[in-house]
């Protein structure tokens, strides 16, 4: 590998590192914990989810209703429309301990919580 090639690659590696840092991507990706929730008759089931702290989470949302729903959470900073009788997968960053609310943006009454410990 020539000196010029190394010199050209160094800024790119630095840039990739900065972008990775900004995007919140850990240097060594952790195994995500999968959490499932169903949506039926306009309600989340179960309404209270649990997950471990400091580990990425894969939220699997199954919509059993005959109309679409939008899984949304301001504190989790995610939103996803899940088609009628469909399934949505949402990747959530590693979370600090706490209580995170979520809801169906199309249905004012459908709400749930994710407790991270």
């Amino acid at each position: 590998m020539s000196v010029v090639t190394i010199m050209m690659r160094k800024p790119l590696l630095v840039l990739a590192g900065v972008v990775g840092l900004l995007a919140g991507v850990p240097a060594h990706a952790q195994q995500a914990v999968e959490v499932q929730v169903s949506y039926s008759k306009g309600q989340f089931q179960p309404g209270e989810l649990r997950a471990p702290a400091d580990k990425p989470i894969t939220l699997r949302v199954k919509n059993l209703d005959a109309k679409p729903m939008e899984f949304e959470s301001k504190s989790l900073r995610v939103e996803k429309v899940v088609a009628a009788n469909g399934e949505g997968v949402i990747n959530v960053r590693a979370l600090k301990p706490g209580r995170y609310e979520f809801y169906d943006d199309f249905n004012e009454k459908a709400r749930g919580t994710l407790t991270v410990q």
Partner: protein
Amino acid sequence: MHRQEVTQYRHRRATIAVAVTCLAGWGGVACAEDASTWRDIETKYIFGFTTGSGIGLEGEKEFTVDAIGRFGKRGGHYAASETKYEFEFTPSQFIQIEFGALGSTHHISGVTDLDDRRQFALGGAFAELRYLAIERTSSNPLAVTLAVEPTIRRIDETGGARVRNFELETTINADLELIRNRLFAGFNLLYEPEVTKLASGETQREAKFGGSAALAVRVAPNVVLGAEAWYLRHYDAANLTAFTGDAVMLGPTLYWAFTPKMFMTAAWNVQVWGREVGSPVSLNLAEFQHHRVKLKFAWEF
């Protein structure tokens, strides 16, 4: 006290009275409701000219029209506006990106040091990168976002003349949830250097530095009322070495969500104190305006 100063004093008292009345009156009404059943709120736009820490939701896209009007200079008639036609999106749970075009209007007559002008123009373009550095959790009420916004203009923001202007606004946007879902405090720290090449070939360098504090009360699930104060300093150098004047602005703020995907914000600031270096007059109307108004409409999709 001169008649003009008396009028300015009355304006200041009226502005403060309106802000205090809004906060006290609506705060009392709001306390009668149970906010624990309300959904979380995005804090980015609830503080008026002060920007909250919110960066949106991953995958969310938004189109906004954000107009800022500036009124009142020393003597004559001064009315100018700059409108951002903006697209913003959140590609990750830590970053928000915005970009768009600028439209500007100038209606100036008889103002000291400015040419008379009546025009509308496409004034430039901008982009913004926001990074959430500290996130709020149920056990940490503080959230902090770092933002950098480069802007290019072909029309001078103040006077409306043809120029080449490059500005780099850098801000720290922090907010605190003082009462869950109900009461929020917002803080901004601003450093905004810019360089302008005039039609004559002359190059001007200047900078603004300052900060703000805001308080916002959520009086209903979709309505937030508040007040904010700004302190701004102006320099004729990007490295903050040639101080030319400063000003304090105060005013009320409003956030109103029409639907879960559509909202507006409004704010009005009036300069209540200011000074120009080497000038005995009250208020700094050379570098800042007497009044500024913000009106923003947003559609999420």
